[in-house]
């Protein structure tokens, strides 16, 4: 079993198709929606994490492409210069994925890269500018 993050982009016509449930049913992959941006009459965007066997993931991607969904690996990643963090907490005000949280005992900042959906809100929220988003790193 493996996990991979993908960005799915699709045209308005596809929005009504049961894409997600199809993947679950056909290939036994579990789909975790990390971020969604679907506005009516416009193209939609979904960031998903697929979990399944390597083969199942490959077949899922093929299937999505056949359905007219543009499917690209989500290679954006958040880079955090944690050693410089002063634990002010400003970034936790905008992080709703649970990736950035204050430890309620030590009040140090805890960063959980796996929960990060790379929404980018913390980049501007950190007064020390410790976050950057990169495309080079495979997430």
């Amino acid at each position, binding site marked *: 079993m493996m996990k991979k993050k993908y960005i799915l982009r699709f045209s308005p016509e596809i929005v009504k198709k049961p894409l997600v449930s199809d993947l679950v049913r056909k290939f036994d992959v579990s789909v975790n929606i990390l971020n969604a941006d679907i506005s009516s009459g416009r193209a939609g965007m979904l960031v998903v994490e697929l979990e399944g066997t390597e083969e199942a993931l490959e077949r899922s991607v093929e299937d999505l492409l056949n359905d007219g969904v543009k499917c690209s690996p989500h290679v954006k990643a958040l880079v955090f210069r944690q050693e410089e963090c*002063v*634990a*002010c*907490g*400003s*970034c*936790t*005000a*905008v992080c*709703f994925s649970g990736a950035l949280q*204050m430890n*309620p005992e*030590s*009040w*140090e900042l805890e960063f959980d890269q796996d929960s990060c959906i790379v929404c980018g*809100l913390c980049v*501007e*929220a950190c*007064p*020390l*500018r410790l976050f950057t988003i990169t495309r080079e790193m495979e997430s």
Partner: protein
Amino acid sequence: MSTRKTVEQINEKIKKGEAVVVTAEEISKMAMSMSPSEIVDTVDIVTTATFGPMCSSGAFVNFGHYSPPIRMEEITLNDVPVSGGLAAVDTYIGATSESHFDHQYGGAHVIEDLIAGKDIKIKARAKGTDCYPNKEVETIINKDSVNEFYLYNPRNAYQNYGVAVNTKHKTIYTYMGTLLPNIGNATYSTSGELSPLLNDPSFRTIGIGTRIFLGGTQGYVSWYGTQFNTMKPKNDFGIPTSNAGTIAVIGDAKEMSTEYIKAAYFEKYGVSIFIGIGIPIPILDEDIAKACMIRNEQIETQIIDYSEPDKPSLGVANYEQLRSGSIEINGKKVKTAPMSSLMKARKIAAELKSWIDRGEFYITQPVELFPKESTVKNLKQR
């Protein structure tokens, strides 16, 4: 009646290594099982601390004279404009002054870089006079090349501060951080029961001349801070429920550490600076003890709508609620986040305690107490 102690007696104990020092968080815990009188009997000093962004900060520098001499009128340090109207080679670096070329770099960064020992580019211009003929200087300075370099912050360590929220439909960017639309989050500052001026709400022991921890070294309270306000409503525990008292502080920046002085940039707001301050409170009598025994749930503060120009209050929250991760506003659960570092504040309170324990830091009696009554005026169009 419990014993009254004097500052001299406590200093005598510090000298002998016998003074009992606890942090303001520790005393708040002790308060659950001890009376004020018992606290006076057991504890000599309570250390309080805060580490948060404090915009009204800056530093004086004397560069030394140049040959041929110049009476500097326009000065930049790393392209950040600094005060030019201060004799020939003195300046004041305002923390929030921004570079001509990079709005995310400002006076705060110059101060931090100087403390870190880095070289800074100075450019100065003047009209030229008979005794100061030079019209232009461009050279490099650092903290070892200049004569004096001391922090002088006109308004620090606010006694309480409102919680910030945004009721409008668009995100706003403030010095209280990124405030998400429709009360999407709530941010708060101050270190609660550890915060200096919340432990001495009526300024019985903190006054002009009080020796403090400032930026990693010994500093002093030099005056009451600007916008000093004694008229804010207080709750049942004597705590003003919004921003009230402030202090002006001074200290030798050459001795400070970038661990406790950190430049900051708030998105779409500008440059600010994190300042670490620790203040010892001598437990001289029961009233002072009682004030230090204050607990987070007793410290209330207003919830302020930052999206309205006159910043109306939407209610109150206490620090226990704020620290729990969410508060309720208009029946809705709202995520809370701090803006000042409790982790650093704790470090400062512990560090100050260890200085006193080692006999390196003696407490002071204020030379003068702060005004008993003071209000804040606004700037009016005339």
